[in-house]
């Protein structure tokens, strides 16, 4: 456990040692604010909740998280530091988990910095704060899902741009599979269970069900097992491709 913490600490410090942290956080806050107020008609709706705010999170993450995750492994392989890292007395899963957790904690920090939004709704009315807490939790879990995908795509290539594009595409598949428009394409001609299977892999479906305030264990389990799957894939790919 100790070594995971050491890796987490170094990676996290790395975000803040470069402009990445500032750029990511500022853009995240600006976009989530802009989406909520302009596109989400936050004021016009006249309701004290954060639904418009959270509704945009999947889309924000879709683009921003790959930008954060693309360097996780690609850079390590390009610079050759992976050779130094993996010849330290550490296991592959400790490294994979440590790096992932650092990125996740960082996303959590960015998410936590949206707290003025929460304060604002509480000043404007009486929102259901339980729902908001659940939504934050759901958003964080979903961010973990995007990050784990990004980690795996970053392991596939030394090229960060390719890693970025791959993560956006795979992330998009996981978002869209719950989108009504996409589901309509399938409905009618595919058996119901396939339709269910497709939508059950959707980030949207699970995120929406959590952000209604119902903390269903199945939704949490979905994200946790999705993260575990992609991290396992990351470790396998690194093991295969580290020599290149």
């Amino acid at each position: 456990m100790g070594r995971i913490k050491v890796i987490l600490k170094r990676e996290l410090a790395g975000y803040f040692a470069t402009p990445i942290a500032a750029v990511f956080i500022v853009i995240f806050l600006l976009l989530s604010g802009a989406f909520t107020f302009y596109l989400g008609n936050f004021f016009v709706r006249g309701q004290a909740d954060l639904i418009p705010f959270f509704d945009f999170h999947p889309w924000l993450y879709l683009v921003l998280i790959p930008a954060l995750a693309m360097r996780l492994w690609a850079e390590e392989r390009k610079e050759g530091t992976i050779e130094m890292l993996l010849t330290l007395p550490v296991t592959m899963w400790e490294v994979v988990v440590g790096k992932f957790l650092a990125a996740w904690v960082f996303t959590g920090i960015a998410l936590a910095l949206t707290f003025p939004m929460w304060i604002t709704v509480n000043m404007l009315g009486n929102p259901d704060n339980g729902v908001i807490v659940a939504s934050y939790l759901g958003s964080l879990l979903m961010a973990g899902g995007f990050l784990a995908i990004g980690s795996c795509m970053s392991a596939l290539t030394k090229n960060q741009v390719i890693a970025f594009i791959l993560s956006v595409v795979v992330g998009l598949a996981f978002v869209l599979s719950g989108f009504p428009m996409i589901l309509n394409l399938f409905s009618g001609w595919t058996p119901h269970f396939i339709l269910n299977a497709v939508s059950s892999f959707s980030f949207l479906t699970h995120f929406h069900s959590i952000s209604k305030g119902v903390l269903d264990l199945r939704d949490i389990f979905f994200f946790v097992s999705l993260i575990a799957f992609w991290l396992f894939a990351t470790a396998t790919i690194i093991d295969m491709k580290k020599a290149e």
Partner: protein
Amino acid sequence: MGTMVDITGLRKEFGSIVAVDGVSFTVGQGEVLGFLGPNGAGKSTTMKMITGFLTPTGGTAKICGYDILEQPLEAKKRIGYLPEGAPAYQDMTPSAFLTFIGEMRGLSGEDLRKRVSGTVEKVNLQSVLEQPIETLSKGFKRRLGLAQAILHDPEVLILDEPTDGLDPNQKHEVRTLIRTMAPEKAIILSTHILEEVQAVCTRAMIIAKGKVVTDGTPADLEGQSPTHNTIVLTVRSGDVYAMQAQLAKIDGVKKVEEMGQDGEFTQFRIFPDPGRWIIADVGQCAREQQWEVAELQVERGQLDEVFRNLTAPKQALT
């Protein structure tokens, strides 16, 4: 002299390329083994397998009794490794980087601080401790790589081209450092500098095309040189043919070659019969003939010549 590194039948294939082809050897405490070999011989690949970065296609390595494939953590704890090119996290400072390595190796608190500062002194990094690594010169980066390898005072040191990119003073310092650490450790280093082998290694191994072609002390290697124990004699030019004939008459001389003349002086190389020590006789001959001798010496043999003979592609027979 306990065996600390035990390598058996190490083999690595990259697709159809066989990079390392059945390498076996052992290294004991106090030994400094120099890996020599042309580019692409498989030196780095061998080191990557010994340190557990690459999984061998066949064979394995035991570090202080721990198999790198079966007990990688125990084995890795005992190794300090400087990878080729001395990679390091570019946006960190040397001091943060070494602290990170120390923490990964389970050091903490006062112990960690002392190790870092002690190591920094050993490799002369004091002046750049707080400067981002990406702004360091090549030599400083290499020294940082060395520092990270020796930080935990490992029993086994694997150094891939440790003096590459260092200035002559630093090369000397690093070689001295390696020699002072040698008695307690088993050290394997790779190099393209043949004098380095003579300067620090107790044993030299030439690798070509993934195979070990010679393994012995640097002196053994010199002994394989065709010019080993030959006499070089430089005298004021006279009747070259007469001189050559005169020299060839000496007992124990196998062959005399004229190596060239520059108007004033002529140089001969005199090959002895195997096992004969003829420098005194050559000197005697020169005195008797009253030649004006400018130089008379025994050659130890050229390592680079041995290296070339063993590793250069054979010329096609015509």
